[in-house]
């Protein structure tokens, strides 16, 4: 029948008018992302051997590593920065890491106001995170 499609369309939009809305109220309500979402990096500093494979693997030269020697003449990490302005979060570095020190995380609110803040000091980040966890333990 001519015009049947029109009525069907009106029916669908009419039904949608009363259906449950799918909007997520973002700032108040955080989204639940899949666990393997790659949107941020995290370095487990004690596990890192400063081998530099991650820096070599990175296609965009995001990672800069500085290392020194300790009293046993063993290499230790002294600095680990990521220029996330160039980073695609492809995850090649985490795959390459032999000691599983580098992870991708689901944290996604990475926007900053100044370009310099895009340079992430991963050791500082680890320390801040560790102290936060300490506080959590003390309070709990």
């Amino acid at each position: 029948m001519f015009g049947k499609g029109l009525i069907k369309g009106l029916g669908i939009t009419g039904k949608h008018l009363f259906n449950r809305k799918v909007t997520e109220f973002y700032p108040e309500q955080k989204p639940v992302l899949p666990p393997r979402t790659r949107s941020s990096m995290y370095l487990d500093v004690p596990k890192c051997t400063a081998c530099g494979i991650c820096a070599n693997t990175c296609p965009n030269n995001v990672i800069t590593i500085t290392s020194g020697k300790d009293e046993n003449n063993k290499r230790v990490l002294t600095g680990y920065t990521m220029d996330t302005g160039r980073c695609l979060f492809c995850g090649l570095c985490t795959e390459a890491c032999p000691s599983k020190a580098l992870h991708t995380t689901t944290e996604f609110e990475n926007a900053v106001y100044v370009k310099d803040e895009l340079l992430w000091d991963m050791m500082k980040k680890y320390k801040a995170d560790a102290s936060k966890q300490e506080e959590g333990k003390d309070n709990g």
Partner: protein
Amino acid sequence: MPQFGSDIFLLIANWIRGLFGANTYAADVVMDIVKFIMIYVVLVLAVMVFVMLERKVCAWMQLRVGPNRLGPRGWGQIIGDMIKLMGKEDFRPDNVDKWPWALAPMFFLGITIMVFAVLPFGRGMVPVDLDLGIFYILAISALSVLPVVTAGWASNNKYSLLGGMRSVAQMISYEIPLVFSLLGVVMITQTFKTSAIVEAQQHVWFVLLQPIGFVVYVIAAMAEINRAPFDLIEAESEFGCGYFTEYSGLRFGLFYLAEYANLFLISAVAATVFLGGWQGPFLPGWLWFAIKVLFMVFLIMWFRWTFPRFRVDQLMHFGWKVLLPLSLANIVLTGVGIYVYQLIFPGIGG
């Protein structure tokens, strides 16, 4: 039937007239001014409600919640919209035709406001009760094609001009089914007077006597005010924003206001002519009128957010080969119906 609160506005009008005592001339002048201001206030308030309703209805139909920041559940968003529009720079491009460009939005809104003068907003609430009410509505609203084509031409922009040209083709084509669809009701009531048409619907609404006329009216009126699915004039994907591409700030705001005022207008005419105007039980007349107008507005929004836009040739095909014969057939049917009715009940009707 006495209705609670039905005569509030009439009481106020009588009180204002009473202030002038025997000087009826002064009272008439003051009442005309008051009526004009009231039409303007009602129009602006209605447009605010419609814009908000449009955003919410469109969101709900797309499974969103729509604006949700300002006011309770986001219903105050329109205030933010208005402040944004008023705060924008009034920018005039270098090569526009200065005066026509500036006057077009004002005329567009002015013509729309003029039509509201003959609409019955409630029992005894017709600002100017012309004998040729329906004729006046059609004649004045037909003028609104001129500001659109003026804006398109004066903008000195090929996209604006294309939009203006399309508007002429579309509005003139759909004017004819629009007029014919209202003719059926005029044939039954034997009058052009809007208040008399509402009175005639005391027992049965004309949407039941004139279903074809109603359908043709709604479709043609939607095309007449350039609302989706007939928004070829401002088809964003084809040429920017059509005739108001070069407008910004308050001038764009005037076009926006006029567009929603036109929506109000066609809904109000549909409510008056087909849905019984202010007639209805229990509630005061002006409230019934508002409810019917809101129903029509919702219906038209429903169409807008369901149907995709027509192509230009489809539009012309539909207007001339479907709507026009349909409205002509409706007139013939109405005439035969009236003739048969008079044979059965001689002496009734003209």
